[in-house]
């Protein structure tokens, strides 16, 4: 079952299959979600439920991507971007690909959004895709075992970029 995940759409993927697929890349991971639909759920779903129902939100997708791709050795980061009048939007940034995975982009092709690694650039690009202004963005972690999101740091748009906590890190 570990062979051909990127070529054949399986009806019911499991997290285990994704973790065991040694050929999985961010691009091939994103390809698997073309048929998924969006529905806001105010908690992080069990990933197998998300994969089985093919229904979820940006948190479910970004956290699963972070979980699976970091397992395969990719340097991933979870980013929350807050915009006025909208629920915070989560994306998963992959440093090796210099791009982020966004549940709003579930096309089979061109499903990685190329972007600079600093959180301000990511927030700006995400907000632009919504045609909105962002107010703040946080890098956070999530653990399926404890079901706890933990913010690492937050960048505010109106703060001077020189004061960004991730300034000079990338």
């Amino acid at each position: 079952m570990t062979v051909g995940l990127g070529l054949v759409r399986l009806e019911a993927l499991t997290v285990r299959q994704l973790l065991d697929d040694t050929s999985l890349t961010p691009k091939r991971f994103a390809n698997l979600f073309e048929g998924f639909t969006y529905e806001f759920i105010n908690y992080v779903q069990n990933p197998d439920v998300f994969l089985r129902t093919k229904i979820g939100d940006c948190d479910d997708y970004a956290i699963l991507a972070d979980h699976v791709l970091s397992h395969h050795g990719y340097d991933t980061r979870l980013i929350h971007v807050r915009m006025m009048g909208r629920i915070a939007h989560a994306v998963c940034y992959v440093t090796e690909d210099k791009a982020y995975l966004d549940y709003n982009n579930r096309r089979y092709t061109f499903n990685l959004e190329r972007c600079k690694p600093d959180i301000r650039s990511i927030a700006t690009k995400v907000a632009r895709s919504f045609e909105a202004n962002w107010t703040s963005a946080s890098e956070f972690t999530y653990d399926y075992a404890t079901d706890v999101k933990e913010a690492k740091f937050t960048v505010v748009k109106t703060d001077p970029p020189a004061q960004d906590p991730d300034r000079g890190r990338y």
Partner: protein
Amino acid sequence: MKDPTIKRVLALFALVTVVLVAVAVHAVRQLNRTVTASDWVNRTHALINELEGIAAATQSAEGSLRIYALTRDPRDLAAGRRSQVRLADHLEVAGALARDQAETARQVARLATLAESRSAFARELGSAPPESLATLFAVDAANTAVEELLRLVERLVTEQMNLLALRDQESFLQAQATRWTIGLGVAINFLLLAAGAWLIRDDILMRRRAADAMAAANAQLESRVQARTAELSAANDRLNLENLERRWANQALEHQLRYNHLIINSITDLVFVITKVANISRINPAVEHDTGWLAKDLINRPLPELVRLTAGDLPLQRGLKEGHDLRDLPATLLRSEGGEIPVRFTFYPLRDGNNVVGGVVILNRATA
């Protein structure tokens, strides 16, 4: 480029361009300021949202703990913990959003301390044996951390609302200033364009008037030229006619003169034309032939040196003076080889009006 109207129009258009550029630069600056102001308004809104999220998450967490106190169901405790996780998330974001306001940041830090005390209480509940839960809740009843947290949130929200009103006012004033600037710039440009149009219209009218005046002058000049040409043509015709008549008259005169010469020259009598003082002015060929003198030797010589009246010079002098004829008087003619020839002397005075200006002397060979 020396046309002053073109210079003025170009200057006007340069001014219009300057105004347009100035308005555009100012509008872009104002737009950037408005965007910045909007970002600050959004930031304030976001902070208010986070503060309200803190209040909601606190109440949700507290509600779950109260339910847990009644049900002892671990799911309620878990729900309370999830609310506290959300609370922590709101606190993290609120802390970041309040970084630029020292007092607000300090109060958000106080909120975090209060929230942490409630998280500690939840953790204590989770690890406590069921029989001690009642005691723990009884002790917690006197805890005012939640009330303080909610009051603090309410105060912070009020402050942020005031700040929001100020920022909104600033944004409104900037938008109004932008409207005024653009409106003023457009009005100035319209005025400048109207001035340009007036200048062009004035110049066109002036040029049209000048062209009309020039056309009228040309027409007048043309008629004058035509009249003058007609006059000249008529004068030329007259001159041509006069010339023709004069030529005919001259030809007639020359013809007459030639006949006169022919007549005089064909006369075998000797003819002398003399002046008032009796000097010879002209002769006919018969004189040269009969005397042997050449004309050049005789012209301007006194006639008495060549012709001597038998009666002396007096009759000729009186004839020249009084202007009467002398007819057939005896005289002698001196020849160039010497010797004299007897001749008959006749004199006719020449008159110019009433004055005698000379005379004609005719000598006939005297017959024996």
